Structures are given as structure tokens and as C-alpha cells.
């Protein structure tokens, strides 16, 4: 180890190692990059490298690769995390059978690098799967330009990768080369192959086989996203699959600001960018959001090509000067749902540009100040699909509109509401139409395009119509956002239908003629039958008459929800039939039905609800709409 480190300090070693790294960058990343530059503040030694000619050569290597750490000490990851990963690695290397390790963490937090460094430490070879190495011959080019999807070849490719290592092993048995025999291998998958998203079953089966047959271990490096998109790696490894496969897990956190600052200062020193401005560092840290790779790239961006960089003052100027434009280079920080919706529902304007824009006379009422956030941008960053955005907006717009319009004396309330509703409808129809496109290669983009348009319509409509006079704009009013009720609605309906089916089955067992309704379990059943049967339950029985079997069945606990009434009328009904309950059973049921008749909470002020933690709103079907206050 020591010799390896010390060689980095010698000039010749450095000069030699630049060249191979340049060429190996293009090929697979199996080659481990040796330590390139010194990190010790012995800048004086590296001075000779700062002559312009040689600097040109160095500039062809990207900073993030150049300053890749090769020892534990160089890593910007927390020590405990490194130890944790080290232990896990020891664990899986020592095992005989294949095991699977999942490393999760946001992008640029050091998963791959830490792994590399540790593997080097332990003398373990890291074998990576390269998805770009696809066999083009497997494409079946046919007439009209249509060809079969190559996903089979990717499966083959992947399974070859998984299992060839075991084949190698057998080869090595005959190969008595000790040096290669003792080298342990660990396999790494950085990108999950696409077929795993299409056919997760095949993928899981492959992994199961791997576990059974392979002698090596497999590491997945999963980048966490908050996207609910289709290619979210979290989808591939839900908890039950993790249990089945007995995966080991470790999750990395994003890199702390202190580490980031240290590293950047080091790099700056090494590259002679001069003294780094504190404010610049702050901006850098906030924009990259714990992604060190991104931060280093930004540093590189802001420092390209100017000889001016060598001087102190000018550097800081250029750096601070460019600090304002960070939006252009900023990371695609995804908005959390709350933030994104907040941007739409609480419109922010760029104050100064209002006056410049002149509208023709007949359109003056449509004049709006310039937005500070671009609507399409919001859509891109929101981790929601367009129909979910629509549902969220629809669920929440009315409350916020209510508060804002009442506080700012908004005149044309209904016009605005009308317009918003119209655009919601348009959005919804476009969404529905986009789903009708077959998910093929050509039409996939059409579907995406339509969804974009639909989201654009709904977002812009809300932004346009939420135009309240700025004077009374309340500052940072706490308004809770609710989850759309639609999914609960679907659940509730299905539940009801299932209950209805059970009820019918029970009725049929008890020799009823209701067998016909099993087939017609729709309109008539719910519109007519259920309400009327339920009415009978509330009726006073003529004296001496036993309660109907049918009605008796109704009171079984499984069916109370099926026969629950629409809430508001309960107060009317109860007045006439309260006196009619004789048995305790009746009273019990009465209580069950009464409990559902809670007063409507939302009539109270919103400010009250703001103070509550988990605000629950019950609907009569007994389900609760859970909202999360961000």
C-alpha cells in the first residue's frame, strides 16, 4: 500500500499514468485508475505541472476523474459508512454461495468510488456489467423498418454476465496460475437492465438462479430518485423481493457540506484556481445538493479556459460573477411534491417586469405578471405523471382559491373557477386519449407529448387564474395539501362491489331468488335493490313479525359498509325511526351508523386545521382520507 501511495508523489509516475487513463476512459471501467494527483498540500511539488503546455494535457481529463480518491482517507464519505460497507464486503466475499448486496443512495454520493477503493484494499476484483456491449447481430431487421425488440438479447447478455463468472471459475481450476486463482471477484451492476422493468419476473428469476448457482456475489448500485417514474430502481427491489433474495443493504447519504468544501478546496488548490470564495462554496453546495460529482463538474465548468484563473482576485470575481447564473447549470433538483404543487398554487412573480408588456385593449384583463417559474419546468421537475398532477391540483385548488380570493376581494370568482374547471376537463380528456395509444415504439413519444400538453394546460390554467391582487397576498400562509381522493374512491367502490358479491352469495345460499343479480351486479343493484333493502332495516316491524332473514343478514358486520347510507340524510331518517328500535342489537347497529355521521370538519377555519398534525377527514364509508402535511 505504502509503495503505491508513494509512487503518486513521484513526477515520473504521474506523467506515466496520465496516458493510460486517457485511453482507458473510453473502454470499460474495469481498469482501476491509479491515484493521479497528490492531495497533500505539497503544492510546491506540483508547481512544475502548472506550466501552460502541460496544463493543456491535464485539461483533457475531467476533474472528477482526475481527483478520484484511491484510499480510504481520500474518500469524502463518512468514516462509519466506509466501515459499514467494508464489513459487508467482507461478509459477502467470505460466503461460498452467491449473495446480493444493494447499495443505495442519491447520485454522486460516492457509492461506486467507495466500493472501488475498498475492493482495491481487499484485493478483490470488481467486475462490472457493461450494458452498451450488445450483440448487434441479434437484431432482426425486417421490411418496413420494423424490427423485433432487442430485449431478449439484453437478457442473454445479462445472464451471460451473471453466469460466465462461474464458468470462468471452472476454467481457472485448470489454470494453475496462482495469482489469478486467489483473486476474488465481486460483480457490480450499476445500471439495471431495461428488461427488468418490462419483465420483472424474469429478472427476479435470474437473480434467484444466480444465488443458487453462482459462487460470486453481486452488488447493485442503485441511485435513489424520488421519481415515481417507470424506471425507478426501487420498483425492481420492493421489500418482499429483498426478503426473498435475502439481500444485504446499505444506504448512502448525500455528501455532507463539510466534506464537499474540503474536497473542492483541495481541488482548487491543486488546479491553482486560487483562493475559493466562501459564498461560491455555499452556492455550490446548495445547488449540487450533496452530489459531489456534480459539484466538481460545476467547478470545472466555471473555470474553463481562462488563463485568468491563475490570479486570485479575478478568479473570485468570475466565480462570484457566475454564481448568479447557477440556475443554468444547476442540478435537476427534483421538487418534492409539496414544493412543486406549492409553486403552482402559490404563484410567484418576478416583480420588476410587469410594466414592460403591453396587451391589446380588448385583452387587457388577461394581463398577468411574469412568472418566476416556468410551467413546463415545473412539470419536468415534479415527480408526478400528468394525471396525478391533475388530481392533486383538482383536489387542492379549491381550498386555496377560497382563502386567497376571500382575502383579496377577488371579483370574478366564478369566471376563474369556470376556466380552471374547463381546462381540467381538457387535461383529463387528453390524458385519457394518450393512454389509448398502443405502447409501441413510434407512439410512445406521442403519448409522452400528449401528457406534457395536458400537464401544461392544467398547470398554466391554475397559474393564470390564481391571479389575486398583490397587496393582500398573505405571506407564507400554512395551507395543507391533500392527497387526491380518487384512488380512495376506486378502492371504496371495489370494496363495496366485493361486499355486494359476498352478500349475494350469502343470500343465495339461504335459498333466495337473488341469484340473478350476480350477473347484473351493476346499476339496478346499487341504485334500487340495496337502498330499498336497507330501508326495510330501519322500518318498524309490525308487531309479532320476525325480522326478515334478508334484513337480518344485512346487519352482519361484514356488510355494514355496504348498507351504509349517504350521510346527510341520516338526520332526517333518524327522527322518524329512532323510537322504533327495540332490541339491543338495533341499538348497536344504530351506534355503528351514527358514528359515521360526524359533522363536516372543513367548515372550520383552515388556520385551525393548520395547527393539527394529522388532520383526518372521515367519509361515511368508514375510510379515512389521509393527508400528509408537508
Amino acid at each position, binding site marked *: 500500500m505504502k509503495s503505491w501511495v508513494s509512487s503518486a508523489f513521484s513526477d515520473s509516475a504521474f506523467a506515466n499514468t496520465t496516458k493510460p487513463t486517457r485511453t482507458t476512459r473510453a473502454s470499460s471501467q474495469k481498469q482501476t485508475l491509479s491515484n493521479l494527483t497528490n492531495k497533500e498540500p505539497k503544492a510546491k511539488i506540483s508547481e512544475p505541472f502548472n506550466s501552460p503546455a502541460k496544463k493543456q494535457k491535464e485539461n483533457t481529463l475531467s476533474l472528477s476523474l482526475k481527483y478520484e480518491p484511491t484510499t480510504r482517507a481520500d474518500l469524502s464519505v463518512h468514516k462509519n459508512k466506509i466501515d459499514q460497507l467494508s464489513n459487508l464486503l467482507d461478509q459477502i466475499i467470505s460466503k461460498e454461495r452467491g449473495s446480493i448486496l444493494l447499495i443505495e443512495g442519491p447520485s454522486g454520493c460516492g457509492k461506486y468510488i467507495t466500493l472501488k477503493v475498498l475492493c482495491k484494499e481487499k484485493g478483490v476484483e470488481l467486475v462490472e456489467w457493461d450494458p452498451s456491449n450488445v450483440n448487434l447481430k441479434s437484431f432482426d431487421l425486417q421490411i418496413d423498418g420494423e424490427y423485433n425488440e432487442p430485449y431478449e438479447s439484453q437478457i442473454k447478455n445479462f445472464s451471460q454476465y451473471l453466469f460466465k463468472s462461474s464458468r470462468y471459475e471452472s476454467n481457472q481450476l485448470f489454470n494453475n496460475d496462482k495469482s489469478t486463482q486467489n483473486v476474488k471477484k465481486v460483480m457490480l451492476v450499476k445500471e439495471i437492465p431495461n428488461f427488468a422493468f418490462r419483465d420483472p419476473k424474469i429478472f427476479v428469476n435470474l437473480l434467484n438462479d444466480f444465488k443458487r448457482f453462482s459462487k460470486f456475489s453481486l452488488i447493485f448500485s442503485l441511485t435513489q430518485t424520488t421519481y415515481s417514474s417507470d424506471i425507478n430502481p426501487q420498483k425492481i427491489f420492493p421489500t418482499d423481493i429483498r426478503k426473498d433474495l435475502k439481500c444485504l443493504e446499505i444506504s448512502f447519504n448525500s455528501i455532507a457540506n463539510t466534506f464537499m468544501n474540503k474536497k473542492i478546496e483541495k481541488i482548487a488548490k491543486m488546479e491553482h484556481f486560487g483562493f475559493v470564495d466562501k459564498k461560491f462554496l455555499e452556492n455550490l453546495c446548495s445547488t449540487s445538493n450533496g452530489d459531489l460529482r456534480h459539484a466538481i463538474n460545476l467547478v470545472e465548468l466555471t473555470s474553463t479556459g481562462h488563463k485568468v484563473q491563475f490570479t486570485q482576485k479575478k478568479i473570485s470575481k468570475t466565480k462570484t460573477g457566475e454564481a448568479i447564473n447557477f440556475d443554468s447549470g444547476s442540478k435537476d433538483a427534483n421538487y418534492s411534491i409539496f414544493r412543486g404543487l406549492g409553486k403552482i398554487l402559490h404563484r410567484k412573480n418576478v416583480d420588476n417586469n410587469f410594466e414592460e408588456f403591453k396587451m391589446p385593449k380588448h385583452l387587457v384583463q388577461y394581463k398577468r405578471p411574469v412568472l418566476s417559474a416556468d410551467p413546463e419546468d415545473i412539470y419536468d421537475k415534479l415527480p408526478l405523471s400528468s394525471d396525478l398532477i391533475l388530481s392533486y391540483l383538482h383536489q387542492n385548488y379549491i381550498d386555496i382559491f377560497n382563502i386567497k380570493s376571500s382575502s383579496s376581494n377577488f371579483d370574478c370568482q366564478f369566471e376563474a373557477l369556470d376556466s380552471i374547471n374547463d381546462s381540467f376537463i381538457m387535461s383529463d380528456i387528453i390524458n385519457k386519449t394518450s393512454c389509448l395509444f398502443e405502447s409501441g415504439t413510434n407512439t410512445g413519444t406521442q403519448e409522452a407529448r400528449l401528457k406534457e400538453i395536458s400537464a401544461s394546460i392544467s398547470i398554466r390554467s391554475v397559474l393564470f387564474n390564481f391571479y389575486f391582487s398583490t397587496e393582500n397576498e398573505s405571506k407564507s400562509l400554512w395551507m395543507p395539501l391533500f392527497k387526491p381522493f380518487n384512488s380512495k374512491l376506486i378502492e371504496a367502490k371495489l370494496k363495496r362491489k366485493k361486499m355486494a358479491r359476498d352478500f349475494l352469495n350469502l343470500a343465495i345460499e339461504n335459498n333466495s331468488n337473488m341469484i*340473478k343479480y350476480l350477473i347484473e351486479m351493476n346499476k339496478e343493484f346499487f341504485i334500487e335493490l340495496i337502498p330499498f333493502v336497507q330501508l326495510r332495516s330501519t322500518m318498524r316491524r309490525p308487531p309479532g313479525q320476525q325480522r326478515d332473514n334478508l334484513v337480518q343478514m344485512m346487519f352482519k358486520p361484514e356488510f355494514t359498509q355496504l348498507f351504509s347510507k*349517504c350521510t346527510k340524510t341520516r338526520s332526517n331518517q333518524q327522527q322518524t325511526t329512532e323510537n322504533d328500535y327495540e332490541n339491543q342489537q338495533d341499538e348497536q347497529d344504530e351506534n355503528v351508523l351514527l358514528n359515521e355521521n360526524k359533522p363536516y370538519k372543513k367548515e372550520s377555519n383552515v388556520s385551525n386545521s393548520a395547527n393539527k398534525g394529522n388532520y383526518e377527514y372521515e367519509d361515511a364509508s368508514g375510510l379515512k382520507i389521509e393527508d400528509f402535511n408537508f
Partner: protein
Amino acid sequence: MSLWCDKHRPKTLNTLDYHKEQADQLKKLVHSEDFPHLLVYGPNGAGKKTRIMCSLKELYGPGVEKLRIERQQFETPSKKTIEMTTLASNYHIEINASDAGIYDRIVIQEMIKTIAQTNQLDAQTQKSFKVIVLTEVDKLTKDAQHALRRTMEKYMNSCRLILCCNSTSRVIPAVRSRCLSLRVPAPTADQIAMILKQTCKTEGLNLPQELANKIALKSNRNLRRALLMCETAYVAHYPFTNDQEISEPDWELFLRETARQIVQQQSVDRIVQIRDRLYELLCHCIPADIIFKGLLKELLTICDGQLKPQIVEIAADMEHKMNLGDKQIFYLEAFVVKFMSIYKKHLEFSLAGCI
């Protein structure tokens, strides 16, 4: 143990109470040499299913009444399995294919193929074909209807289809041309009253004429509903009195109250409340188009004559769009908002006019 509407359902074509000519025609058809494919259509509660069962009994005898529930599984090209419940006797099978959603075509094709390929065991007395009853044909997708058409032609020999729907508009002409259409109109209020009296008589109860007429009127020419109302009235209060209250389904009362609330106040707060009420109705599996129609009806009774055409237009427009879209609550709410906005303007206008 059963409801009156099921207990007293006529079982033979002879015992049908109204549309007797049609019953005669059906009888002739059954006894003729070739029984065609049938398309029975008409409003709810008019007696379509009753007539179909009666015809089946006429065709096959009492064996048709021994029904059993079967659950069948179908596999779609996308490897999804759908489970369908069917009602079958030895001679026929009844299925609601629109339950399968977008996979109804597969269900129909598979079902008919299997039925058509198994021959009648008892060939001597019985007919050489089996009958497949498809309900809610107007909810089938166009694909399914095209598939239906083809299978109808192919398997004419071994099975006959009886299709049942509310209206033929959504049945493609190709299917219509292959069937004999039978229109079953809704019974008149008088006919309903007569049936109610008869039923009560069979039950040993005495139903005064006035009450019978009342129920018949309130039932909206829907015989099933009339019988349910009558039965509920019996449970509520017997002996019957003429001024007895006839109960309505709770969701209708709820809807009425909702309409009243809409007209009472037009504000954003009110919209929030209405939205919750609409969700409540949807949760109870009340179909959205029924909500539309009910709401419209109630609003029209309350609001001013001048506005009526406009409101009708809006309602028709929204309801039509609802069929194109996905989430029904959007359209219901949009209708409410539009109504409120028109109504409010109208109120302000008329107030201003008065001053």
C-alpha cells in the same frame, strides 16, 4: 326470503301481464323451426330479463330454472387472467361480458367457442343449440361487438345468442342486422298499478287503489322499483293507508338535498361541500350519469324558466365529455360550477333589473 320482485316474477310467457301481443309473437318464434338471434332492448325495469327467462323456459322446459354459479377464467394475450362469474343451467349460460373491461372481446370469443363446441347431450327432444344470454351489450367495446358478429355467423348452428341492452344506439349495426330486435317498452302507470294489486292479493294483502296509483306514479314506470317501493311500504306500515309515505332510496334524497344546496348558495365554500357530497354518492357506486340526470332534474324544478335551455345544454355537454375522460368527479364539479356561475349572474341581473 326473497323480494317480491323476484318471487312474483312470471315464469312463463302465458303469465306475462303486459305486452301480451309480443308474448304471443315470442311463443310462435320459440316453436318455429329456426330460432334466431335475439336483441331485446328497452328501459330499466320493463321486463326484458323476465321475458328472456320465459322464452328459455318455453324452449327448454323447467330444467332451465336450475341455475348454478360458475366461475370461469380467461387468459388475455398480455398474460393477465380474468375471472368471470356466469350463471348457467344445462341449456343456457348467462354472462355479463362488460365486467371484463377492455378484455371483453376475449371473454366473448372464448365463451362462445367453448359453448358452441360442446354439443347437446340429450339430442332427442331438445333443441340442437344452446343459448348464450349476454347482458349489458351496449357497454361492450366496439372490438367485442365485431368479434360477436363474426362468432354469431360462425356458430349459428350450435348456439343462439340473446342480447339484452338498454338501447340499441350503442350496438353496432352489423350486430343489429344479425338479430331479431325486440323492443320492450316500459309499462304504463296503470299497468303497474294493476300488477301491484295482483301481487298484494297473492301475498294476502289488501292494497287500496289510490295507494297503488301513487306508487305507480312515483316509480317512474319502472316495475321493479314499484314492487320494491310497495314491499317497503308494507314493511313500514300495514294495513295500508292512502296517505302513507312512500319511501325513496336514500341516495335520491341525498341528491335532492345537494341540488337544493347548490341553488341556495353560490360560493366557493359551497362548492367544497358539494364536492364532498358528490364523492359520497360516487362511493356508493351510484353511476355518474345517474347523478347527472338526477341533479339536472332537481335543478330544473328549482330554477327559473329562462335558464333551463342553457342548463340542459351544459349538462348534456358535460355528460358527453365525461364519457371521453377518466375521472368523473371533474365533470360533475365542472357542471356544478357552471350552474352556479350562470345562476348567480342571473340572480344579480334580475336584482339589478328590479332596481
